[in-house]
């Protein structure tokens, strides 16, 4: 029984496999949300946002995406990265009611989060995580074990939460991080993520032994799979970040047009 998806080196087939560690993780998130928001009365929209974020995490971590991404295809591994680090975190944060966040303000954890979520630090921290977790030796050594694969997934999630916190969370309120600067922050990240994209897409040889030597799935060669991973990072990541920048711009436009609203 495998608890968490990891590279096993066994041939891929499309028969379903259970990963109880993923279910436990998803259940823990739901219970934590319930406990955290008790007395804070989250709105229906907040609950839907949080549930959407958790659902995305579940899809990214469980069979088949989690299993394919952890041991067979670099391109699916990149889809996992986008889901865990760029798509789920803003929804999870947007699902936290302001009243619940205000209640824990001043606590040790929220203070540490406040420190890490300063825009410049968050931007650099996230990109350091992106680079470290795409480093060939790191990927090959972590993906071989369930604990390593779990650590990599959690690094993406933590990095994503810290990256999105200054953009999405209303607490702590940052008058020095106005909406226009948030747009620049998001666009700056698309520029920083260009480096791993370039190396994945234009590398002459496969970077990751895990995917180069994995039992084949479909007809993609290891090189094509890696190039596809680079394109997914570029196009998928760019789409998420530019869409977010567009949403922030819309809020900015509205606030400029109607300062009282």
């Amino acid at each position: 029984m495998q608890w968490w998806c990891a590279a096993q080196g066994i041939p891929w087939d499309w028969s379903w496999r259970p990963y109880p560690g993923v279910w436990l993780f998803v259940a823990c998130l739901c219970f934590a949300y319930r406990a955290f928001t008790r007395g804070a009365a989250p709105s229906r929209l907040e609950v839907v946002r949080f549930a959407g974020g958790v659902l995305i995490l579940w899809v990214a971590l469980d069979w088949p995406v989690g299993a394919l991404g952890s041991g067979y295809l670099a391109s699916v591994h990149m889809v996992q990265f986008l889901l865990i680090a760029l798509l789920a975190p803003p929804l999870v944060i947007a699902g936290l009611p302001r009243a619940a966040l205000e209640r824990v303000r001043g606590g040790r954890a929220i203070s540490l989060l406040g420190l890490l979520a300063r825009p410049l630090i968050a931007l650099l921290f996230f990109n350091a995580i992106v680079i470290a977790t795409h480093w060939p030796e790191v990927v090959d050594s972590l993906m071989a074990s369930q604990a390593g694969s779990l650590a990599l997934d959690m690094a993406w999630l933590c990095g994503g939460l810290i990256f999105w916190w200054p953009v999405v969370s209303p607490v702590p309120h940052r008058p020095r991080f106005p909406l226009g600067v948030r747009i620049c922050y998001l666009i700056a990240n698309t520029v920083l993520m260009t480096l791993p994209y370039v190396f994945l897409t234009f590398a002459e040889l496969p970077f990751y032994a895990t995917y180069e030597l994995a039992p084949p799935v479909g007809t993609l060669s290891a090189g094509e799979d890696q190039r596809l991973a680079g394109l997914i990072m570029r196009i998928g990541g760019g789409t998420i970040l530019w869409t977010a920048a567009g949403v922030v711009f819309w809020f900015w436009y509205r606030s400029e047009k109607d300062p009282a609203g």
Partner: protein
Amino acid sequence: MRPGRVVAAAVCGVGLAGFACASPDTAIDRTEGTGELRGLAVERPFEAPEFALADSRGRRFDFRRETAGSLTLLFFGYTNCPDICPVQMAVLGAALDDLPYADRRQIEVVFVTTDPARDTPDRLRSWLDRFDASFVGLHGELETVNEIQAAFRLPPARIEGASPPPNAGEPYLVGHATPVVAVTGDGVARALYPSGVRQTDWRHDLPLLLRLNRSVSKPGGETGPSGG
């Protein structure tokens, strides 16, 4: 700038610079400059056996005669293999794609099926074409193939976990040796490449093997098993 930001910037800067330097070559090249093979050099190179099997077009393929002068990479496997065989062939095919034409034409890849019951010549051909249309597929009785493998000091292939043998249409696996055997143009087995060998390893070793092949194949060059 606050100290926290300086530290964060430094960490990220080092990360970015490091990623820029990382490549599969630098990642595992432990023998750069030594001229050593990354494959397993055969301690006492030995003569490849004389044998002839039918190729995927039904023609007789005399191994020693057809491969004389070429660097030959020989592999025993089967097309229904779910893991080792397709990976070995894909990695090898991709590595050969990178070679200059002049080098590429000096290399012959020969795949001998260890599952003659299912690997018909047509199936063998279409499977090998997925990796490289120039790969030669050979077909013969399993007993003969096992004798050839024994001559290459490889363990025999056998149907796994089935006794008596499975009926027609029933799925089964074939246990077989996993290394690619590198045979130089003088008919001597020089090195083994077990599963797990990567494109970067082939890229490192193929020029070395070709140089060795040229030295043992040219008139007056070292020949025979004692040639190294």
